């Protein structure tokens, strides 16, 4: 029985019924990764360690944890002890971390087997995976099309059925948008829910780790393990973690879902609108009520984000200096020259662009006008959310205004064109709110995603609503034809 395209729940059943051993599961997963290597999902494989860990898992008649022996892929932004971690950048091309990120460690402690590290936009800066030093990732649904980004390798590996789930990180949509473009499910938890320790920082007040999987149910399984307070992350939330899996399957009668007036959905592609209306009808059938809500400042999310994220990035990436780790230029005249040459050789164009914008926004004379101003607008955006969540439970939008696009077709002449792709996802990062993307059909033969945004710490509501949708539809079961990649 093939393991390809199986969910965690299905693979758990196969393992528990001894239809397959953990070793066989890991070997078949590694074989699938090799078979579809043209997708370019993986930067580094973890073959030896994965094989050894899987062979140590002895089948027993006792109930195993959900993740015992489960193969997972980790975004190459999470530090993994002894396993190369590059952030898809030349500057970290040979970096071997001395420790493992908390989120990954928790999954591995629960029995998961890391089979490899996935390709991504360099330092998570991008929405198409085209800024990776290790080359583009193909969308499994169409060769030569982007998988979305920045967690593009993770999304493609799950969509191609190589792994049942993968980790990602989301600073402005980097879990949800690639999940949407690849036809899978992706959850960005509440800021602080999952430890950021051992994640290579891009924008510290926006970054959050989360799962990409085939179903909301599987996302709940991963989130159960990934969540929780971590002493090592100074912004980790010290609050109770519910059992996300136990909480799905609740009725949603009377749940109020808000549609955001300011997003002007009527201006989107008619097919994108059609999928959205169909999903709305599905939720109405399930008992939800829809209301139009206004978030007057939400249209300012993109400029707000592109002031704050580069500012935090310019500060975070100052640690790459060619001295303590990472690429070091040869033939530097002096220390200053060493910094300049190492960084200029090591970073790609998009990363440089964002460092420069951030440096400008934080420089004397501009700080108040750009950085502080953006943080004030951020407060207004958060206030808008606080206000609407007094009258609705969930907000619903398309995940992305468009489906996946051809390599090189967006943002090369004007970077802002690509930034606008993040319109629907960015605001939940600014406000720290949880949001999920689920597949809800296709537009021009490519997957389209539906986004549900929840109130602070309400991942359980989102997972429940997403699970109900998936129980009543089969969009999440669609599989791409991978003939072009093997």
């Amino acid at each position, binding site marked *: 029985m093939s393991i390809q395209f199986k969910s965690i729940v299905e693979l758990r059943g196969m393992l528990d019924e001894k239809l397959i051993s953990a070793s066989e599961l890991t070997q078949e997963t590694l074989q699938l990764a090799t078979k579809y290597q043209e997708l370019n999902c993986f930067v580094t494989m973890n073959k030896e360690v994965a094989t050894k860990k899987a062979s140590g898992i002895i089948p027993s008649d006792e109930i195993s944890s959900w993740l015992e022996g489960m193969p997972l892929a980790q975004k190459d932004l999470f530090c993994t002890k002894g396993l190369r971690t590059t952030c898809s950048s030349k500057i970290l091309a040979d970096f071997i971390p001395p420790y493992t990120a908390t989120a990954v460690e928790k999954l591995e402690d629960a029995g998961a087997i890391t089979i490899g590290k996935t390709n991504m936009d360099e330092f998570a800066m991008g929405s198409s995976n085209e800024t990776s030093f290790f080359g583009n990732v193909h969308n499994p649904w169409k060769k030569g099309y982007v998988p979305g980004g920045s967690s593009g390798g993770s999304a493609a590996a799950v969509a191609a059925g190589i792994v049942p789930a993968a980790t990602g990180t989301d600073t402005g949509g980097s879990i949800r948008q690639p999940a949407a473009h690849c036809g899978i499910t992706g959850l960005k938890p509440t800021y602080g829910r999952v430890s950021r320790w051992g994640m290579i920082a891009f924008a510290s007040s926006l970054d959050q780790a989360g799962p990409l999987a085939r179903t909301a149910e599987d996302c709940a399984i991963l989130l159960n393990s990934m969540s929780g307070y971590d002493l090592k992350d*100074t912004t980790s939330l010290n609050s109770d973690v519910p059992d996300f899996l136990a909480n799905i399957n609740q009725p949603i009668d009377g749940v109020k879902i808000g549609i955001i007036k300011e997003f002007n959905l009527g201006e989107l592609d008619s097919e994108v609108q059609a999928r959205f209306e169909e999903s709305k009808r599905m939720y109405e059938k399930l008992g939800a009520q829809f209301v139009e809500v206004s978030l007057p400042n939400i249209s300012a999310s993109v400029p707000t984000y592109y002031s704050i994220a580069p500012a935090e990035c310019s500060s975070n990436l100052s640690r790459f200096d060619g001295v303590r780790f990472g690429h070091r230029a040869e033939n530097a005249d002096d220390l200053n020259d060493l910094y300049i040459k190492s960084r200029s050789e090591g970073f790609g164009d998009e990363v440089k662009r964002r460092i420069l914008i951030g440096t*400008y926004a934080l420089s004397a004379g501009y700080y108040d006008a750009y950085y502080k101003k953006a943080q004030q607008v951020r407060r207004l955006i958060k206030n808008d959310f606080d206000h609407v969540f007094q009258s609705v439970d969930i907000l619903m939008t398309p995940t992305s205004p468009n489906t996946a696009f051809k390599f090189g077709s967006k943002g090369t002449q004007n970077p*802002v064109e690509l930034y606008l792709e993040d319109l629907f996802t960015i605001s939940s990062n600014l406000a720290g709110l949880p949001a999920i993307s689920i597949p809800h059909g296709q537009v021009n033969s490519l997957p389209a995603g539906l986004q549900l945004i929840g109130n602070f710490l309400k991942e359980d509501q989102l997972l429940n609503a997403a699970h109900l949708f998936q129980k009543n539809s089969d969009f999440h079961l669609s599989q791409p034809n991978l003939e072009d990649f093997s």
Partner: protein
Amino acid sequence: MDQETVRTICYLARLEIDQKKSSKIQKDLETIIELIGGLQTIDTSDIEPLYNPLEMTASTHEDIVNSDNEKEKFLKNAPASNEDYFLVPRVVE
């Protein structure tokens, strides 16, 4: 944004821009600054900046020595080091 400003920011960020790409970078930065500049039309008087969605001060804990901080492991990742220090080009003559 003129070429002089771009040169200054590049120096502050310790980055060098390929001369062939310089005018494209300048244009890109102008476009992005124009996008961000749109925020100026929003009235934010008396609004406190929101630097972190949790609005909490970074939590602190007891300063206890633990096994995560091993000098040898960290020095091993440095492109150039001796047994105690990271090595850099000579700073003092």
